[in-house]
């Protein structure tokens, strides 16, 4: 398996994982700025024209805090500041205190997504 194939597979897998787990639940800004992958403004999108259904996130660029989505058949980048993404991108990784005598097998919970996921067992 050559290197470019590995990169391609990794990219596809990553995109699939993101689309499965994260989606845009709301557009908070009006208008929403549509960007290129470097974060440069391409155009503006009025909130009334934005999708009302949850929009899957294809990729997340953590350094620029941008997410890639598909809008009207075109892949574009949006600033997370304009969006409400679920599950949230910024969460805490605090060990789950065993105060409830949890049935969890691990003594420590590393869950980073969801509303109390992993702790409320």
């Amino acid at each position, binding site marked *: 398996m050559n290197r470019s194939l590995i990169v391609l597979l990794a990219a596809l897998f990553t995109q699939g994982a993101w689309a499965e787990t994260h989606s845009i639940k709301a557009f*908070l*800004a009006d208008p929403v700025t549509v960007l290129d992958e470097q*974060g440069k403004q391409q155009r503006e999108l009025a909130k009334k024209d934005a999708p009302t259904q949850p929009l899957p996130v294809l990729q997340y660029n953590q350094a620029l805090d941008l997410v890639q989505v598909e809008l009207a058949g075109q892949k574009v980048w949006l600033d997370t500041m304009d969006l409400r993404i679920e599950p949230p991108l*910024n969460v805490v990784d605090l060990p*789950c205190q065993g*105060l*409830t*005598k949890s049935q969890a097998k691990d003594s420590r919970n590393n869950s980073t997504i969801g509303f109390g996921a992993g*702790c409320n067992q």
Partner: protein
Amino acid sequence: MKGYLVAASLLASSVLSGCATLKGADQAFLNLVGPSTQSRVQGHYVDNSDVRQYYKLDPQRQSKQRLSYDGRAVPAAEARQQNLVDIPMLQAYLQGIVTRLSKGWPGELPPLQVKITDSYGFGPSADPYGNLFVPLGMLDNVASEDEIAAMLGHEMSHVLLHHHDRMAAFQQQKDMFTTVASTVALATMAADTGVDRSSGTMKLFSKDPAGTQKTIGNTVLYTALANTFSDQVWSTAWGRSQEDQADLLGTDLMIRAGYAPRAATHSLERLNDFQGKQKPLLTGFLTARKNAMQDSLQQFNLNQFTKELDVLVKDGLTTGLTATSQYFNRSHMSAMDRDTELRQYLQREYRQERRARVNPQSWAKMKSTPQVAKALQGYKDAYFAIDALEKNKVPDADAFIRKALASPVKDQPSIRRTAYTVRLAQGKNSEAVKELQAIKDWSLAGPSTYDLMISYHLKRGDGQSALAMIDKAERNLGSEELFITEKLLANQQLQNAQQVQTVLRKCEQYPTRKENCKKLAPAKA
């Protein structure tokens, strides 16, 4: 409609406060039903007339606070509850962020001092004296210096805007919550202590030292876990409008200091996540704690005196449960609401600045500096030891505490206190006490750590040592009220009738302590 809102606001004020002393509850309620604080602000919040009134410091207010802080007049409920953490390089780094943020404040600055606490909660807190408490749990989870700046800017804003003046009623609730733990410890000690009134003074003798130590040990364990939550639960219960104002001013300050304001929304998202994860734990904890306390009390053949305390404990727990559920119902929603409102403020007032990117490098570098990394790991190992103990995994707890005791922070109060709890769980009582005696700097210790040493001395009938430790606690925590009941007991042990009367008179000034003092007072000859 307007009349309805006013009536609803008045009703909500009385429901939220439970008494007439809660200023700001009506504002908080109006904030929920009316336009948000953020949307009412025109221009940058820091320039608004609401904020300008705080540009100039009131020298009288400042000197009054200074006197309280330097002396011993800090009310027990305002004294810090946590052990402090001493990591000088990290401390200087955090203080540097506050200094940088302070330059954006156009007015006079009160003293602002960062202090790291041993809590694994996420939210920082501030006291009226300008102490900004940063929990280890926050440092463990933030991703950039910008995010730290957002949270410190928020806490500074509470101090700059005098929000503590409005929290009297919430403070009463916190007082009830924290008093419960010390009441149980006291009840346990009193239940195990014989009283000989034949000589006209109270003479204390221990009937079952091992049993008492075990019960106190359990209480200590639960209190240690409680402390992880107490700041988180109570320090942010200031009403939505105060939080909104602190968000606005904190964001203005961080932008003026050149930080990326998007970090403020990152921290609000994390706070929301943290609160969601803690909710089921806290409910379970309070139930477990209630049972443990009742077991502790039932373990002894209680006389009328301790039955009265039992009622107090039950009342306290009911209050705690109700208030806690109210808090979560309101504040859990508010973290996301605050985030949404803040983003709209940024879009309106800081169109360019809101696009700035956070810089994760400076924080990553600080966190990985060997001295800092080793110290933080030491604290984390101690935390895991407590967690393992709660799951009854004593060997795991022992392994974790051994690691913590090999770290550079091994002699700090929080680490030794955890070691004390582990040794008790192992049944090594004398080694447990040695762990406490190994604490090098008692100025870092919180009330519950002092409590252990004071109780130990009292149980041994060593009133002199108890008084010396109480004096240290008063000086370092700035509060005479915290240990006034124990001070009374120590003087009774020393049969110092004059001091007993003096302490009793002082105790009369503290509503939450005076009943206990009266009960412990010697019978009139």
